[in-house]
């Protein structure tokens, strides 16, 4: 086998496989699919109160409308949704806990009728005192949001404090904190805050469910995690999971917001009430804001010490996450934030705590980076302040303390080799870090540069195991029907995962890429896969695919070797033709699949046409708890920016973004660059603009016109994406993921640049003109 040929389509630009369809308007997202004339339309009745007792929910006025098929309320259903902690009622029971919570759900003949009927459901509330701040929620006199928390089903790694609003707390301590503080010449403590934001994928959430005569149910959904949805919904409804098939439609963006279960279970409930009718629920944009997951608000208390030589001696950090009314989706985020809560530094004495706290806000879920953008906002600003206090250059101070292969991490694991230092050098060079500040474009403006480093853990648990199947379908011609079929349980949500699958399979099998087809995910047929929360698909699913192709190849070549009486090692597949280096014989792969291979005696052998591969990261511990604590690997990188600030208005223009990540091996450099640039701009938007504004739990800007997402006007004149490639030991061809964490370092880099330009430090995200202006006045 020639290694060069085996990686023919890897490590080089390769166009997106579905791009042609996308530019022609031909991709079918959920709302574009045809479900026939029996389709029924659903609408949700949302709570209008942040915290209230439900006195009465009366569906009768809605049921009286002609064309309304059914109305379901909390009286009709009782299950709770959850992956690690089942704390979210399918429909509100005795109380509502946030504005937007589903109180009832309606099915009618048209979307207009469903909306009208939803308005007619009569709901009478008796307001309860609410909790609208993560830290106030922890005070002893705070109203209890989940008084029945001890009755909720939960996994072993969830640690609630029953009788409080603390849904989960995790804690790691290493070294001797007293000794760490004693050794410090400089100690700084401060608090940083991150506002809640919306994932705001351009495609709203949607689901269609249908209950079939045999009792099985199909759920078509815009989802990042079909298998997770199947498990969560089946458990909440008390169904055998095999009765519920989740079929994934093309996904118009997710970023974490389409993991777990948002509204999909409501379509299933209605479908069960209306057998054989497909029921469609597609959210309006305002519903996206109030009733689907948000990125959590964070309050971070950081205390850091360093000695006179500029070496970090101790860090104590407490991260308080505002989970809203459901903590389930933040349980693993909290573990990740605790394990990686030091930032990418070697610190001998560290104490890290993550608290996940109930409030009367819309439930939170990870958004791109699994909490890392929020944690680094605090740590990477604090590093600049420590550097200033020590009179050191912020880059030199970081280089002094960066984590390296062999250093201790978490509660006793050892760090692997990383290209973090090279990433930092790359971005510093790109923005000319050592040069004098650039000249501003006007007398009232100032320029500054800032940088930040980052790391992001991939947890080693059931979520990161993966299976893949590669099989050959007999067909008249290989070109006609893409007969190399790949089945995986993971979703391409726009990052380009399916393209990577085609590159891997065509390269390793030895067939043209046009022959390869990636099947849409269907839980009834696809191999089981975790939710892909942490951008680890290239690594986990990539490994499973490599193994599946190897399995298939050895079956195919084994059969031919047997027929030709040659050693299998003499055979190869090149461009779809099986070729023997020994005898120079050849056989088109397609002939083998269609007709088999003839032996010398005239008999015919048929090969197995199916290969399977499984990747299971070795589990260090037996229990759920130990697995939650274990990091499979870290992704690392650095970002640097140059900004210009208007000292009169406080507006920030980002002039230059430079990002570099250690991707192990860029299997598709163009897709990697696209992820890095897109991730940076999403982070710029969160850093400068985005904030879900609320007054005592009432949303104030639940529409795109009032919620500032970055537009093309906000694209900096220069945006650069670079990579470092230190191979991932257990990655496919050394690769690891990049899409999830591509924006993690940007917010603190911008804050550090603003501080350099203006002399004021903004500790609350987003960095609004008002924040800067006010800080400049004092």
């Amino acid at each position: 086998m020639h290694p060069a040929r085996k990686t023919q389509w890897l490590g080089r630009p390769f166009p997106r496989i579905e791009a042609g369809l996308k530019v022609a308007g031909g991709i079918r997202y959920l709302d574009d699919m045809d479900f026939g004339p029996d389709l029924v339309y659903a609408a949700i009745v949302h709570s209008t109160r942040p915290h209230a007792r439900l006195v009465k929910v009366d569906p009768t006025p809605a049921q009286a409308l002609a064309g309304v098929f059914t109305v379901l309320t909390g009286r009709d259903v009782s299950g709770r949704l959850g992956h690690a902690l089942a704390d979210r009622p399918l429909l509100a029971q005795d109380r509502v806990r946030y504005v937007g919570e589903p109180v009832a759900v309606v099915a009618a003949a048209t979307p207009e009728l469903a909306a009208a009927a939803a308005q007619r459901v009569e709901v009478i509330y008796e307001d309860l005192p609410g909790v609208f701040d993560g830290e106030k929620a922890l005070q002893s006199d705070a109203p209890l949001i989940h008084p029945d928390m001890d009755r909720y089903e939960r996994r072993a790694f969830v640690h609630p404090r029953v009788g409080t609003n603390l849904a989960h707390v995790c804690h790691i301590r290493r070294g001797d904190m007293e000794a760490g503080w004693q050794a410090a010449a400089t100690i700084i403590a401060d608090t940083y805050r991150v506002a809640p934001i919306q994932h705001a994928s351009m495609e709203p959430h949607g689901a269609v469910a249908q209950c079939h005569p045999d009792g099985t149910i199909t759920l078509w959904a815009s989802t990042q995690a079909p298998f997770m949805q199947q498990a969560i919904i089946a458990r909440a409804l008390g169904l055998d999971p095999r009765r519920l098939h989740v079929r994934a439609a093309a996904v118009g963006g997710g970023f974490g917001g389409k993991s777990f279960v948002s509204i999909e279970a409501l379509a299933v409930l209605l479908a069960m009430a209306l057998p054989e009718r497909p029921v469609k629920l597609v959210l309006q944009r305002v519903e996206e804001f109030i009733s689907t997951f948000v990125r959590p608000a964070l309050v971070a208390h950081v205390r850091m010490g360093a000695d006179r030589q500029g070496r970090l001696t101790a860090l104590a950090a407490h991260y308080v996450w505002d989970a809203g009314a459901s903590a389930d989706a933040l349980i693993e985020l909290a573990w990740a934030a605790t394990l990686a809560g030091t930032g990418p530094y070697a610190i001998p004495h560290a104490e890290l705590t993550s608290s996940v706290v109930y409030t009367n806000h819309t439930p939170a879920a990870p958004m791109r980076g699994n909490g890392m953008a929020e944690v680094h906002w605090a740590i990477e600003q604090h590093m600049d302040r420590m550097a200033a206090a020590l009179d050191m250059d912020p880059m030199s101070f970081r280089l002094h303390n960066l984590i390296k292969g062999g250093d201790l991490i978490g509660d006793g694991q050892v760090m692997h080799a990383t290209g973090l230092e090279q990433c930092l050098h790359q971005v510093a060079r790109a923005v000319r870090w050592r040069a004098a500040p650039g000249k501003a474009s006007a007398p009232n403006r100032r320029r500054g540069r800032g940088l930040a480093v980052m790391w992001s853990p991939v947890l080693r648990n059931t979520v990161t195991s993966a299976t893949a199947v590669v099989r050959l379908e007999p067909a008249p011609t290989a070109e006609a029907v893409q007969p190399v079929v790949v089945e995986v349980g993971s979703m391409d949500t726009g990052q380009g995962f399916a393209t990577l699958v085609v590159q891997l399979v065509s390269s390793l099998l030895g067939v043209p890429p046009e022959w390869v087809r990636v099947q849409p995910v269907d839980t009834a047929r696809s191999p089981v896969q975790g939710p892909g929360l942490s951008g680890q698909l290239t690594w986990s699913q990539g490994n499973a695919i490599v193994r599946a192709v190897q399995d298939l190849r050895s079956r195919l070549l084994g059969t031919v070797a047997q027929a030709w009486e040659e050693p299998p090692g003499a055979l190869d597949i090149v461009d779809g033709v099986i070729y023997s280096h020994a005898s120079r014989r050849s056989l088109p792969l397609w002939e083998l699949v269609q007709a088999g291979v003839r032996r010398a005696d005239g008999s015919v052998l048929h090969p197995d046409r199916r290969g399977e591969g499984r990747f299971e990261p070795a589990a260090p511990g037996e229990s759920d708890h130990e697995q939650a604590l274990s990091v499979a690997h870290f992704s690392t990188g650095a970002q640097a920016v140059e900004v210009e600030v208007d000292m009169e208005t406080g507006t920030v223009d980002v002039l230059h973004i430079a990002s570099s990540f250690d991707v192990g091996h860029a299997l598709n450099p163009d897709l990697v660059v696209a992820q890095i640039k897109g991730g940076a701009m999403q982070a710029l938007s969160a850093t400068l603009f985005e904030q879900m504004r609320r007054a005592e739990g009432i949303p104030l800007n639940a529409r795109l016109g009032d919620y500032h997402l970055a537009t093309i006007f906000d694209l900096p004149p220069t945006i650069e994406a670079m990579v470092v490639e230190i191979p991932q030991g257990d990655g496919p061809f050394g690769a690891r993921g990049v899409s999830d964490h591509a924006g993690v370092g940007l917010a603190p880099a911008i804050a550090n640049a603003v501080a350099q330009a203006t002399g004021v430090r903004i500790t609350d995200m987003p960095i609004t003109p008002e924040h800067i202006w006010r800080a400049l006045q004092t």
Partner: protein
Amino acid sequence: MKHEITLVVNGHEHRLQVESHHTLLDVLRRQLGLTGTKHGCDCGECGACSIWLNDHLVLSCLVLAAEADGAHVVTVEGLAASGEFTHLQEAFIVHHGMQCGFCTAGFLMAAAALLRANPRPNTAAIRAGLAGNLCRCTGYHGILQAVQTASRIRR
């Protein structure tokens, strides 16, 4: 109330019965099956439903179908009238001007309208021409490059 209207969509004439409250977007998607044009917000704030109405770029979620009686409409499905991709569509593929693809149709219609009015737009003109379209994935850089490339090829 029902209205009888005539629309010429991507060169084909259609006689349609529409309700007063139906938007042009509803009719394109539900009655004509042209689902390339997307519902992103239904209130003119995201740009995903951008189409051409009598050669003007409009947000089809803000146009009532009854108002469009007699109009010529072009959607993303009609952008490459010849059946071949336009330079613009090719450039979106080459520069990764899309990821999830949900906003892509709107961007293409806006960018094509821009290039028709101004075949050699500078960067500022491209930004102004696409300012009404939101993209959450790409960060706009690939889109900007695609429009620049398409404008060079057209010359």
